[in-house]
């Protein structure tokens, strides 16, 4: 079973962010075209830019860097952390360069140039990579830098830059974190489910093949006696050991903690016992499955001890939708009428009480029918949570 889960859950965020980057580059170019012709103060004939040529070079750097970083982020061409660090440095330099290329008369009343709101990209990258706290800090940092350069600190409260960049940093960070965590949980769940499936498959395989052969050897060996009988006895011991082993293996719960009672029962029921059940899986919570299998095992042990050497045991599993019914029956000597005291002395009634108690703990019930030469028949009923009634 091959499960493909993209380890990078935040990739769609990174890709989306590059669309925004593209739009912000277009805006930065537009702002440059407008600003580079502007006069400060308006109508004074004095150009707003002190170094227009350098400002074009800086815009070129902004465009090239945007292209490079956009491709790197969207297609994972290079590790993200160093790229984000370079992006931070370039964004800070471009923002600070305002002081150099534009005259104070202009930028004091306008945004930082040439970076404009393109600086938001750096905040988004930091948030996606390092989470909401780092994203928020980057947002506040850039907003303070920007306002500092524009000498607009007195407008900190009325200016929208700080709340917007802070919000962008925190929300993008939270979003990326949530998606990453969900992805991790999903991949753990899928791995667990695959492992459980594989265990169940192995248990089935061992049950169908090896256990059948060992059971056959034990029976044939017993018929033949002598050295073959000894081999048969050894095969029987291994059968029992293997059966116990796979029953322990099969109890690993699935994603929603529900396991297949049928598989579990087939693993714990000894070879001589006849098992009947539906073709499909009978899912119940893992703890209920484990307990039911243990109760069935207890009853079967009891049958082996008390029902007589020729007794045969049968287990029937029925899924009625709202409840699951297990019948464990033997055709042995049964419990004769008026012999309950003796039965109690033999420890059988103690076992009965324990079985009833365990079934009651599961919210179900256990009914025993018995009589002389009628064998014993336990009917165990467990309601399905949510479907009961």
């Amino acid at each position: 079973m091959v499960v493909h889960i993209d380890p990078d859950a935040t990739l769609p965020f990174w890709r989306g962010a590059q669309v925004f980057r593209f739009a912000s580059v277009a805006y930065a170019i537009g702002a440059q075209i407008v600003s580079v012709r502007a006069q400060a103060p308006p109508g004074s004939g004095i150009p707003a830019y002190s170094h227009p040529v350098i400002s074009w070079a800086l815009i070129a750097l902004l465009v090239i860097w945007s292209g490079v970083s956009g491709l790197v982020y969207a297609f994972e061409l290079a590790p993200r952390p160093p790229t984000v660090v370079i992006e931070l440095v370039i964004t800070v330099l471009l923002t600070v360069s305002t002081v150099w290329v534009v005259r104070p008369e202009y930028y004091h009343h306008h945004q930082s140039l040439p970076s404009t709101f393109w600086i938001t990209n750096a905040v988004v990258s930091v948030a996606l990579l390092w989470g909401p706290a780092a994203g928020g800090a980057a947002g506040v940092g850039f907003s303070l830098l920007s306002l500092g350069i524009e000498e607009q600190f007195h407008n900190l409260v009325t200016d929208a830059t700080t709340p917007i960049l802070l919000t962008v940093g925190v929300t993008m960070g939270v979003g990326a974190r949530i998606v990453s965590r969900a992805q991790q949980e999903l991949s753990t769940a899928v791995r667990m489910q695959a492992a459980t499936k594989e265990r169940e498959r192995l248990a089935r395989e061992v049950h169908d093949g090896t256990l059948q052969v060992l059971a056959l050897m034990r029976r044939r060996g017993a018929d033949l006696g002598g050295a073959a009988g000894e081999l048969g006895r050894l095969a029987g011991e291994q059968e029992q050991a293997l059966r116990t082993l796979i029953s322990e293996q099969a109890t690993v719960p699935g994603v929603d903690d529900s396991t297949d009672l049928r598989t579990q029962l087939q693993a714990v029921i000894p070879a001589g016992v006849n098992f009947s059940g539906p073709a499909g899986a009978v899912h119940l919570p893992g703890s209920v499955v484990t307990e039911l299998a243990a109760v069935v095992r207890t009853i079967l042990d009891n049958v082996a001890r008390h029902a007589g050497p020729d007794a045969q045991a049968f287990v029937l599993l029925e899924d009625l939708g709202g409840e699951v019914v297990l019948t464990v029956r033997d055709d042995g000597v049964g419990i004769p009428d008026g012999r309950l005291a003796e039965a109690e002395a033999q420890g059988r009634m103690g076992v009965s009480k324990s079985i009833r108690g365990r079934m009651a703990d599961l919210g179900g019930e256990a009914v025993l029918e018995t009589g002389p030469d009628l064998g014993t028949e336990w009917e165990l009923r467990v309601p399905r949570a949510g479907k009961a009634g």
Partner: protein
Amino acid sequence: MSAAESTTVMVVDDHPMWRDGVSRDLEAAGFTVVATADSVAAATTRAKATTPQVVLMDMHLPDGNGAEATARVLEAAPGANVLILSASSERDDVLQAVKAGACGYLVKSASAAELIEAVNATAAGQAVFTPGLAGLVLGEYRRMATEPTPAGAEPAPTLTPRELEVLRLVAKGLSAKQIGRRLDVSHRTVENHVQATLRKLQLSNRIELTRYAIENELG
């Protein structure tokens, strides 16, 4: 063993050791093993050539499963009775094979005596209804009852209360005679009830397959 002597059997299994062992047991009991096969293809051609009365069918074959093999063998030799001989947990496969027309199911760990008894019963056209098979059929009826019927389809077959009662007792391991005593009817009546549950299931499967074929041709 006069009944056995006239009975022809084909053994289908891909394990040579198992195939030979079963064939030997059958020959020793007086049956005539007319063919053995280790694949669906071989089983189909040999069933056509030898028309065995009973086919002992394994569920694991290299070129398909026992359900396919059962369907194809019954097509090639319609008079044959197929008895599934399977390891115990290939349950869905067993159910499919029974729906495809197999009339019995025996686990591989059954003793030689049980096997011979089952082959005799199968040759006589009786269903070899082990508790395991009863459990499967019971489960299948319950599954069909909970599934919504597609529009225009035949309603899923259902069991009468008496059939349900009988099937549950068989699944719990009671013999026809024991059930007859419990319900105060003859063991023949019990066997008839049991066979009816199987026939209804096979019939509904045939109707289903035909409907599927027609729909696919029209579509």
